[in-house]
Structures are given as structure tokens and as C-alpha cells.
């Protein structure tokens, strides 16, 4: 059991997301950085998709009300446990009464606090993720508040050797163009109906993540994307990653809390394997886009999975080594 001490807004309980309910108008939700969530869970010996607390604003502080192993992954945010520094992407055995503090990130923008066994909230429609729009899932369907208490499924002293870290996904799987974080994008249905100059500018230019960006979507700022002729399209299904272009030409990238339908023309889609990169890109920061094919998108997913498998294998070896 932990208690939220800080009044910092917008921290939510998230797992990989709620799949299979788009047909009922229920979006997927889920962690903005799947890799960070999976790493935290691997470090604790949890299933990769166990629920954790996603923290987008800092400082953030919790008190452990009982012994509990925990991991902090994602953004490097000056974490301390009772004042002792805790390295980024690290797992350790927490003791009753200790206070975990997370400061402002020096790299990345979202931290994940994973607990042994996962955060114990009810599963709704197959997921523990907070569905903010529908006000269900997570803790009472809302963001965490000061004084909230959350349990772990496996509190107490962990049987595993802890006190170990992992190399951040951003370092293990780097992707940049001219020193700017990059994401791969698949051209989408209306791509060909944009002017050639706009299409070229999309790939060649830098895009700023504006302050109107959150778990629902990122509003980007750059050279406007102009259609060859105005488009009026009926609303249709959309998923996280889809890049829509409203009138005015400044694109919106749908993120994990995206609604399941929309009517703006679709320019492209950030591939599933790179959505975590966008999830960690700070507001006000610049990003670049790299055109990719469907096959490359599938390969990228496999690269992510291979990275997690390798971490998992090394952790197993480490645990065997400590036992011996």
C-alpha cells in the first residue's frame, strides 16, 4: 500500500491498455511509454503488462505504508528514497515508512512507478488502465490525488534479488534525425490528397510539440500541411498514432486516450513501435518523422520485443547468479 503525498495532477494508473472495446466507443488508454512499463515490470518479475502509475508532472511523492518492492522507469527524474539517490530505470526493495520522491526529469517526460505484482485496482473490460473520458478503470476512473492509497498485488519482501537497473530504451534503441528525436510514420489513407510540397515538408521539417498536447493527442506545429482540394470526410475509426490534419494544416497525433472515431483527413500514422518515443518527447520539444513501410513497421515491433526478451534473459541470468 502506498499513499500519494504530492498534489501533482494527472498521474494515472495504466497498463498496456484496453483492447477489443473500440466497437463500443471505448478507447484503448494504456501507458504512453509501453517499453518503460514493461521494463519496470520485468525488473520486478511481474507480467510485462501489470498496471503501474504513470507520472507526467513533477515533483511527485509517495509514502510506502508497508514493505513493497518497486521500480521507477521512464523519464530520468532525480528519484530519491528517503533522500538517498535512486538511479533511473532501477528496482529496489522499499520499506514501510519510506518516502519516494521524483523531481523534474532531465531526460524523457513520463515516469512509471511499478509495484511488485502490479497496482491492485479492479480490471474493467479486461484492463486496469484509467479511462478518463468514460470515468472508469484505474482508481475510480480518475487521476490520482493527494491522500489516495493504492495497493500492490504482491507487497512485502520480494524473493527476487533487486537493486539492479536497465539501460534506458532511448539509449538501447536510439532513433534520431540531425540530433532530433524521430518517429517512423506510415502514410495513411488521405496522404496522396495533400500537396506534394506539404508532403515533402512533413518529412524534411522539424515539428514542435505544442502545449496543447496530452494523453488524448499531441498538437504539432510546423509548416502547414495543405490538401490539393478541400476534403469533407465522414467520421471513421481511428487509433493511437493516427496523424489527423484539421483545417489550417497543423497536425494532431492521436495518443493513448484518443477517442475511437474522427473525421479529419488522415495524413499518416506513427507506428505502434515508436509511440513510446512520442510519449517521452517533452512538450515544447522538436521531433522529426521518418517515412516507413508496413514491413518496416512490423520489424520495428519485433525489434522492441527482442529488446525486452534480452532484458528478461539477462535478468534471469542475474537472478540465477545471485542465487548461486
Amino acid at each position, binding site marked *: 500500500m502506498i499513499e500519494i503525498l504530492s498534489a501533482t495532477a494527472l498521474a494515472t494508473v495504466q497498463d498496456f491498455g484496453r483492447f477489443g472495446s473500440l466497437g463500443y466507443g471505448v478507447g484503448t488508454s494504456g501507458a504512453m511509454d509501453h517499453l518503460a512499463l514493461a521494463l519496470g515490470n520485468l525488473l520486478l518479475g511481474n507480467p510485462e503488462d501489470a498496471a503501474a502509475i504513470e507520472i507526467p508532472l513533477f515533483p511527485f511523492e509517495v509514502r510506502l505504508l508497508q514493505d513493497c518492492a518497486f521500480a521507477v522507469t521512464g523519464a*530520468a527524474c532525480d528519484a530519491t528514497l528517503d533522500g538517498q*539517490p535512486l*538511479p*533511473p*530505470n*532501477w528496482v529496489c526493495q522499499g520499506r514501510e515508512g519510506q518516502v519516494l520522491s521524483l523531481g523534474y526529469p*532531465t*531526460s524523457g517526460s513520463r515516469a512509471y512507478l511499478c509495484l511488485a505484482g502490479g497496482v491492485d485496482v479492479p480490471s474493467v473490460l479486461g484492463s486496469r488502465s484509467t479511462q478518463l473520458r468514460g470515468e472508469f478503470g484505474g482508481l475510480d476512473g480518475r487521476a490520482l490525488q493527494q491522500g489516495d492509497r493504492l495497493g500492490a498485488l504482491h507487497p512485502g519482501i520480494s524473493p527476487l534479488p533487486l*537493486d*539492479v*537497473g*536497465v*539501460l*534506458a530504451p532511448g*539509449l*538501447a534503441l536510439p532513433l534520431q534525425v540531425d540530433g532530433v528525436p524521430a518517429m517512423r510514420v506510415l502514410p495513411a489513407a488521405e496522404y496522396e490528397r495533400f500537396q506534394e510540397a506539404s508532403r515533402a515538408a512533413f518529412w524534411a521539417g522539424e515539428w514542435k510539440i505544442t502545449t496543447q498536447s496530452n494523453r488524448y493527442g499531441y498538437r504539432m506545429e510546423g509548416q502547414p500541411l495543405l490538401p490539393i482540394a478541400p476534403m469533407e470526410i465522414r467520421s471513421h475509426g481511428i487509433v493511437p498514432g493516427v496523424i489527423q490534419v484539421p483545417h489550417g494544416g497543423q497536425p494532431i497525433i492521436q495518443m493513448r486516450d484518443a477517442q475511437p472515431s474522427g473525421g479529419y483527413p488522415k495524413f499518416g500514422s506513427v507506428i505502434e513501435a515508436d509511440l513510446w518515443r512520442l510519449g517521452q518527447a517533452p512538450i515544447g520539444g522538436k521531433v522529426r518523422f521518418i517515412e516507413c513501410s508496413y514491413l518496416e513497421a512490423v520489424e520495428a515491433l519485433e525489434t522492441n520485443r527482442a*529488446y525486452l526478451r*534480452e*532484458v528478461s534473459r*539477462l*535478468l534471469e541470468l*542475474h537472478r540465477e*547468479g545471485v542465487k*548461486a
Partner: protein
Amino acid sequence: MTLEEIRQLALWLKEHHLAGAEMSRPGVHLTLKRGASAGAVAAPAVAVVEDQVLRTTGLGRLLLTHPQLDQPFVAVGDQLSAGQLVALLQVGELLLPLRAPRAARVVDVRVPCGTTVGYGEAFLGVEYPA
């Protein structure tokens, strides 16, 4: 007997195609077997002479600064508390901690950040309080 001497013995065994060697001295019993599986030989309890250095606890890449941070864990002159993190050993994607066993002062840094190290290499000179 030092690790360097044991490494030298292992090298001689290899050069002369010998299967193994066994030697005893007061307080030390050493068994070397070429090609034996690592787990086959139980490590005997060894009386360790405490020297004024911190040693690596395994093979890997020694990191004196966390790859996501700018500041090294420790600098010469720092007072270390027991259990303080002083360096990391990177093994693939894993980062293993190297911690001060007890309070000490950092005297010198003996291995540059990023060096591939073996087991038991002295990487930090320290001074324990008298």
C-alpha cells in the same frame, strides 16, 4: 595470492596444455581445472585481506557515470557512506550496482569510465577511517 597470480597460473596451464593444478598454502586452497564447467568447483571460504580499494564484483563495462546522467557517482575526496552507489557494471542491457561496503573517503579513481573490466579489479582507491 592475488588474482593476477591466479590469472598467470591459468595462462601457464593453457600454454602447457595441462588439465589442471591444485595447490595449498596456509589459508588458501586453489583448484584450477581447464575446460571444467564453472559451477563444478565449490568456492572455498577465503580469508580476505582488507585492502584500501573497491573491487569490481564481476565482468562488464565499468560506468562511473550513469548513462542518463551527467555527474559521476563519486569524485576524489568524497566521503562515502556504507552502501553508497559508486559505479555501475554494465552487462548488456543490465546495470549492476557497485557499492561502498562501509564508510570511506575516495582517494583516487583507477579505471576510466567505459573500461571493460574483469572480476576483482581495483577501480577505486579509498581510505577507511582508522
